[in-house]
């Protein structure tokens, strides 16, 4: 499952990121395996996505979110 499929208001954990598709800048902002991620808001057509990764609030496009593999965490 990827970040692009996350529902609004739901939290998950990043399992893996494809370092070829995800630029260093995003990694440095906290988009790394093991960190928590939450979908805060989506723009029309669910793109871009407003997410909270590792307590940093970011907007990224869906195509980028497709390369972030996530898994659900039990709450």
């Amino acid at each position, binding site marked *: 499952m990827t970040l692009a499929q996350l529902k609004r208001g739901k939290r998950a954990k990043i399992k893996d*990121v494809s*370092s*070829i598709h995800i*630029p*260093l*800048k*995003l*990694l*440095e*902002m*906290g988009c*790394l*395996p093991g960190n928590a991620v939450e979908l*805060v*808001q989506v*723009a*029309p*057509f669910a*793109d*871009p996505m*407003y997410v909270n990764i*590792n*307590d*940093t*609030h*970011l*907007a*990224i*496009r869906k*195509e*980028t979110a497709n390369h972030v593999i996530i898994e659900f965490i039990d709450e």
Partner: protein
Amino acid sequence: MSKQINVALIGNPNTGKTSVFNALTGLNQKVGNYPGITVEKKEGICKLPQGVKAHIIDLPGTYSLNASSLDENVVIELLLNKNDKDFPDVAVVVSDVENLKRNLLLYTQIKDLEIPTILVINMSDRMSRKGISIDIPYLEEQLNTKIALVSTRKNKGIQDLKTLIANYRSLSTQPCLDISIIDSDYFNNLKKTFPNQLTYKLWLVITQDVNFGDIDRNTIEDVSHFKTKPVAALKRLQQKETIKRYQFINNVLKNGQTIDVKAAKDLRTKFDRVLTHKFWGYLIFFVILLTIFQAIYDWAEVPMDFIDGTFVALSEWVKNSLPEGAFTSLIAEGIIPGLGGIVIFIPQIAFLFLFISILEESGYMSRVVFLMDRIMRRFGLSGKSIVPLISGTACAIPAIMATRNIESWKERLITILVTPFTTCSARLPVYLIIISLVIPKGRIFGLSYQALTLMLLYLIGFGAAVGSAYLLNKILKIKSKTFFVIEMPNYKLPLPKNVGITVLEKTKAFVFGAGKIILAISIVLWFLASYGPGKEFNNAETIVKEQYASQQLSEDELQQKIAAHQLEHSFIGITGRAIEPAIRPLGYDWKIGIAIVSSFAAREVFVGTLATIYSVGSDEEETIKNRMAGEINPVLGGPLFNFASGVSLMLFYAFAMQCMSTLAIVKRETNSWKWPILQLVIMSGFAYLIALAAFQILK
């Protein structure tokens, strides 16, 4: 003996770094450029305890030392070059208390360069509201430095910071992370090959295109017994490095910071629910824009009338109190009206900068980027293009520089090419004076027709930008990675001091930048308008008297006819009439033609030029507006500035590329003459055709 300490302020965007800079330097700062590039360089002087002075540089905001834009490159180039005269004795890393985890990443990188580094934890006033508590002594011990807990909003902690800077020599230069743990073979080999260099520094040089003084990437790769790695492997190492850094940071914060989630009051969620909403978000954005334009119009009216009147009085006073002669008339008829033509727009330009700076400072601008990205992408732009397009309403030059954070080259190039269509503040003088001449005064739903016309002109500019972006997106065959990431900072009440300084700096830069050009042009114009070749000019008095001998003219009327005749046969009149055939179909006379030609230096010259030309041509002291209202169309009769010619003129200014500084900046940012020349030809050609069509249809 007092020695000046070099201090570099470094920090992520949105951490209040500039507020700290303003708090340290006050108005004791200047804004320039780094040599050879257009990145803004802010520096200032700060007095420290014990009579020491600090020279402070506010470096561009960056998330990391791995630069991804020209602005960020400035940071790393300075920090790697010990021979730079600005090389810091001490680095001050500004962090935001709410984003400590991410902010510390940059801190660890700078610490690893073995530069004494002070950590500022800013916005400490928000701690209790967010339920954050920090164990400062513990953090100081773990991070191996001194920490200043600062709140620029409450003006707390600045003195402590000054003391820390003054005592920077006692700071440790131990690195946070031993870089060789991410690949010991590789880094030990590197260390052996270059025993005199810092390994982390070499690593930074290898992974990006930065040259620093004595060593660069090529020399590293040239050394035959050192093999560097392919790009993909380097990227994996960088990812590993980042993970290691976060492990270190997480360990430090686990014991050094506690966040009581229950105590945290989250305004962000409440605001975002509305401001980034699929419907309300867009509506609110539109209402904000509408309010801004109405305010620019309404609030500025009183000070503008006052300035206009003052300059007329000043010109009259000069005429009456200085001895008559060429010099007096140069001042009274050339320089004063020319400068008046620019000073009058200070109120409006200041208001515009005020609003833009509030939008940026409050964090709202990022929400607009988020809302607009999908829509803008359809036109080949990025959501981030909205920032240049909005700040382009102040000036295209900083706007084009603001495109640097757009990650995709194609989206960035298109943004650069279309930004000059947005209605910049230099167009404002032209629009305002023509609107006041040709658009009636009434109101509809509390909004004046004049303000609505102005709003419409802004929309036309925006529409032209977006429309041409759409075409460019279809035409340009550029393959580039599309990628987009933007931080959504917390909402903040803008600090009056920050907003004030921005408005002051930007307005000053605009007025002095434009003022110089206008001063020079109005002097040249005055000469050209006051002198002429041949007997038509020199014998104007006799010629006019003979011509009107049969008519009973009053002395005043006669004098006016003489002045007009002289102006027509002056150097400027001759030039103007030479170009008149080209602009007559647009509804303009030769005086407007001269104003258009001279505004190729900068648009705002238009009003000043007309002011100078009219003022040479008449004896009476009147406001620019009244003079323009009195002009008669030589061919059609009736007022020269009527609805048709006014609309035509405004449309011409809406589309034409008339700003040499913008062309120069486009050349720099695209690194080619091709794009600015295309802009000039296509925009101006299109402007001519549209203006022609408008006048022919409306007349």
